[in-house]
């Protein structure tokens, strides 16, 4: 299905299109949420709310302002960050690092999840320490780049170029795997 068709179907509140959207994007969007919100039940709750929000607010999405996936991922990311910062979740005892995410996923029972996690470790290994740090804080801990800059006293420009470098590495390796 073309993106225009998909958007038109969503705007028409069509069930089949919504199911297609879910099948195509739920894994990626759930990843956006669950790497920030580590607790599986809470992550699923956030994902539920975000997906409902996406379908309900589809009229607010503007094609000229960016692609659909980016818009959806940002809704998920912001909901996850909101949840993480709400008092509801106590992150006490949870460091929420890439390692937790990778090993946490691997330790879960069932082959399904095990297969799903393939490649993450390889992707992460390719990053140098600086890049890993940036990815960890921005992708896994829900920091904004300016928060990373302030908290760790890294110049904003450096944060930006590290984000760029890290994503370039991911880009290269995603294509390879």
């Amino acid at each position, binding site marked *: 299905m073309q993106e225009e068709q998909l958007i038109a179907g969503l705007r*028409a*509140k*069509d*069930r*089949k299109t*919504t*199911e297609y959207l*879910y099948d195509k994007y*739920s*894994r*990626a*969007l*759930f*990843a*956006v949420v*669950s*790497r920030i919100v580590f607790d599986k039940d809470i992550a*699923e709750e956030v*994902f*539920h709310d975000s*997906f*409902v929000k996406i*379908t*309900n607010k589809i009229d607010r999405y503007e094609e*000229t*302002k*960016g*692609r659909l*996936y*980016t818009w959806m*991922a*940002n809704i998920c*990311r912001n909901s996850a960050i909101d949840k993480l910062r709400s008092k509801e979740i106590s992150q006490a005892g949870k460091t929420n690092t890439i390692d937790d*995410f990778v090993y946490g996923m691997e330790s*879960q029972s069932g082959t*399904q*999840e095990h297969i*799903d*996690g*393939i*490649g*993450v470790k390889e*992707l992460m290994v390719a990053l140098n320490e600086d890049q890993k740090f940036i990815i960890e804080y*921005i992708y896994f801990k829900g920091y*904004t*780049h*300016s928060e990373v800059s302030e908290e760790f006293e890294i110049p904003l*420009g450096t*944060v*930006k*170029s*590290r*984000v*760029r470098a890290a*994503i370039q590495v*991911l*880009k290269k390796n*995603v*294509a390879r*795997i």
Partner: protein
Amino acid sequence: MNIQSYISSGKLELFLLGELTDREREEVLDRAKRYPEIQQELNDLEETMFAFDSMTGVVPSQEVKDKIFTSLESTFILKENPKLIGDTAQVKVIPITSAWKPFAIAASIAAILASGAAFYYADKYQERNQQFTALLQDQSVMADNLNQVKFDYEKKGSQLDKLIAGDYKKVKMLGDSFELQKDARVDVLWDQEAEDVFVAVNQLNGLSDELDYQLWAIGEDGPVGIGLVNAGEKMALQQMKSVADAGTFAITIEPKGGSIAPNLEKLVVLGEVS
């Protein structure tokens, strides 16, 4: 503009992370429109992020999917028969499976009932709101009345205190010996020691707006005006100015506001202090 340095600034990544201000977003969108390389890089990065997210994620549980679609159930719109809309070739037919019909019917009925209820309650709300406003107004009127009553009560209370504590003489003023109002009768209550004077109208005709009844205390120095008498306020005590010396009290009709000297031709009632 150096396209490569713009691309490598990291701005596009932040754009995708939703971390740019509205103005910066506009800038990125504008440049992407103008320079195909930038648009291409944006597309590649988005693909990368989607691929990264897809690879690192796990599929959410079936329960979440069921819950989501249950939550969305009421928002789905069942397609009308596309033939009714127009060219069948262009309209994609989304078949309505029979399993959805009962839900659709139930949802429609629920929607109708809900709108009915909404109208009903909106109407009720309006009505209650008006009643409430009316009650508030009533309440405000009552509060005013209560204040008036309280004021009167306090006045009466203090008058009563004076009457009980003081040594009041009652002077009956009658109109039978004059031409104007034969049946007129007004009582003066006077405490000579405290010099307090009250009048109580028993019978006094109403006057036109330009005229007033004026009470006079007539002593050794002649008549002294000690206040205007309200004819309408019957059987109630009206306090007058204080008087130390008087042998006679009388009421005349005077122009509005009273006069310095009484018009004896308009004498209404007179009573001597016994």
